[in-house]
């Protein structure tokens, strides 16, 4: 699959997915960003700084750890966990925030805006802005602010201005709309630090490049530990940045099966879910052509997931491409299953996962039992569950 190395093409397309569907005002800014990123990409000093801060500030490399008791519990394939939850700020989002933060400094911009769903990207952006001395504004839906109160407080502590979004569904989708409106208005002095592999070109490729550090490490680690590549890689998919991050370095390894796990919420048939690739159709949202959840008239639908970070009606164009060529498979896990997997990982491995990767754990656990013991599954444990305590307490009907 040699051609995959060249994707996206010069117009930002992965096959028929991607592109730049934005107001004219942003087109020059996207050109500027693309040029700046292309230059940075060729500059060894840029990557040297990225690597050194990844190591000394974020805490890379993260371990790849064999989940011995979980494996035994499932009674089949060996399960390994890529521990992105151990990173500074508790999730993989810091990889991208760091990369783009260094780019902001290169582009000599001072004002940074970002959107956030679960709050993990907001916290990562706020953290990097504090570290690099940049001004930061984060847009967050009112509904997400309520369910992720702790992350809201974290961002404020880090010196970020939080702007609640009360339009539309009051979640991530509308936070992105509002961030784009801010960018259109303040484009001259503002950098938009987008948190996932979505949006107009060059965001999907740029965020993928910064997140690919996950897969590069995992590849070396599994070779060192097992002497061979895994049979399966499993990761959760909202916008899709942690999954692209771990998938991408394995894309040309044809025998490694890639599985993305979306949020089935209360069940796909109820309509209350966020399984964009499993149940969506091709459309244009937030600047890119990709799968989206929409009605017959092309209106974007509201979504539901217990995991705020998966609660999004779109998905990165590269995932849509992998689906279309059959390189990756996409499945969905519902709220209840994710919650069960959340508890299972706590009890078997002593790790409290975020509700987002709990979806991936659930699918991996289900699948492992049907495979033989020689098989290897790597799960991307993209974040830590501390942020989700309130939701889990409520969902389990516990009083503290």
């Amino acid at each position, binding site marked *: 699959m040699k051609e995959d190395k060249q994707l996206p093409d010069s117009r930002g397309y992965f096959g028929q997915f991607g592109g730049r569907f934005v*107001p004219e005002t942003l087109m020059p800014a996207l050109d500027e960003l693309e040029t700046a990123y292309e230059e940075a990409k060729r500059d060894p000093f840029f990557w040297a700084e990225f690597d050194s801060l990844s190591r000394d500030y974020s805490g890379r490399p993260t371990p790849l750890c064999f989940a011995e008791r979980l494996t035994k519990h499932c009674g089949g394939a060996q399960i390994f966990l890529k521990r992105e939850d151990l990173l500074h700020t508790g999730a993989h989002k810091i990889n991208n925030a760091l990369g783009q933060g260094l780019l902001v400094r290169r582009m000599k911009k001072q004002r940074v805006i970002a959107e956030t769903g679960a709050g993990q990207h907001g916290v990562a952006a706020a953290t990097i802005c504090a570290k690099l001395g940049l001004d930061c504004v984060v847009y967050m839906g009112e509904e997400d602010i309520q369910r992720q109160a702790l992350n809201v407080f974290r961002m404020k502590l880090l010196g970020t201005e939080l702007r609640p979004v009360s339009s539309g569904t009051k979640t991530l989708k509308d936070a992105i709309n509002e961030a784009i409106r801010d960018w259109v208005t303040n484009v001259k002095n503002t950098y938009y630090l987008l948190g996932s592999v979505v949006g107009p070109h060059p965001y999907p490729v740029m965020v993928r490049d910064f997140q690919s550090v996950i897969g590069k490490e995992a590849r070396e680690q599994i070779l060192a530990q097992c002497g061979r590549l895994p049979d399966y890689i499993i990761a959760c998919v909202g916008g899709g940045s942690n999954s692209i991050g771990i998938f991408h370095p394995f894309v040309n390894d044809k025998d490694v099966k890639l599985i993305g796990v979306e949020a089935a919420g209360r069940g796909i048939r109820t309509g209350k879910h966020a399984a964009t690739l499993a149940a969506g159709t091709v*459309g244009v949202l937030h600047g890119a052509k990709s799968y*989206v959840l929409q009605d017959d008239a092309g209106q974007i639908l509201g979504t539901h997931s217990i995991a705020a970070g998966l609660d999004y009606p779109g998905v990165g164009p590269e995932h849509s491409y992998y689906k279309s060529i059959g390189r990756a498979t996409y499945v969905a896990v519902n709220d209840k299953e994710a919650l069960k997997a959340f508890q299972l990982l706590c009890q078997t491995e002593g790790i409290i996962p975020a509700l987002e990767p709990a979806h991936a754990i659930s699918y991996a656990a289900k699948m492992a039992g049907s495979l033989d013991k020689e098989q290897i599954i790597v799960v991307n444990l993209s974040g830590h569950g501390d942020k989700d305590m309130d939701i889990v307490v409520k969902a389990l009907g516990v009083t503290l």
Partner: protein
Amino acid sequence: MSRISSVFAQSRHTALIPYVTVGYPTVETTLKAVPLFASAGCDIIELGIPFSDPLADGATIQRASYEALRQGVTPKVCFEVAKELRRRVQTPLVFMTYYNPVLKFGLGQFCSKCAEVGIDGLIIPDLPPEEGKELEKSTERHGLDLVYLLSPASTQERIKLVTSRSSGFIYLVSLTGVTGTRDKLPEELESFVGSVRKRTDKPLCVGFGVSTPEQARRVAEVADGVIVGSRIIQLLDEDKSLKNACSFIKCLREALS
């Protein structure tokens, strides 16, 4: 020559182009307002097909879109409204919407339906010329104009691209920002319009932020048309009898003659 182009070829005054969201506050309002606006001297009328995620729009049009959607205003309903309006007015009608509803409808089908009901052109703010080739095939086949936008942030290269590809007129966004009323238009407005004028003979219409007769007059000094949206939506809110909106249109018309 398209019906839109002939507006600019024949008219001696600056074109007045109001925007209304179809179905806001009700479909009946749209059916009443558009003929009234036409007889008050509007030259082209923009009909907004509401979209759930209008990222180029400010609070006023966002709210209007949301309300219209809540009442079930789909592209299909908009076609019916346009068909009815075409029976009542001669004025060119232009759909303004986002790309996704058009894509979902099917580019060819959407354009053929536009032609069938008497729509003259399309304005799609999240569709730059780079992504518009496919839609252009359909608009050309069905004799529709596809209006592209320029902004003060546009580079010389982009001005060249947009002026060569836009048909009917070129929509100049007066400021870097979203739609909505503003107290002041930017100081650079004249030089922006001038820099585009140097590149093209196509008509230039200015919109975004134009909300008073004084502002419209200033725009008219340099442009061929003035587009007014959010202020009209606000007036439809204030007075359901349409009196305020109509007298506002008349003031604009006078300011532009």
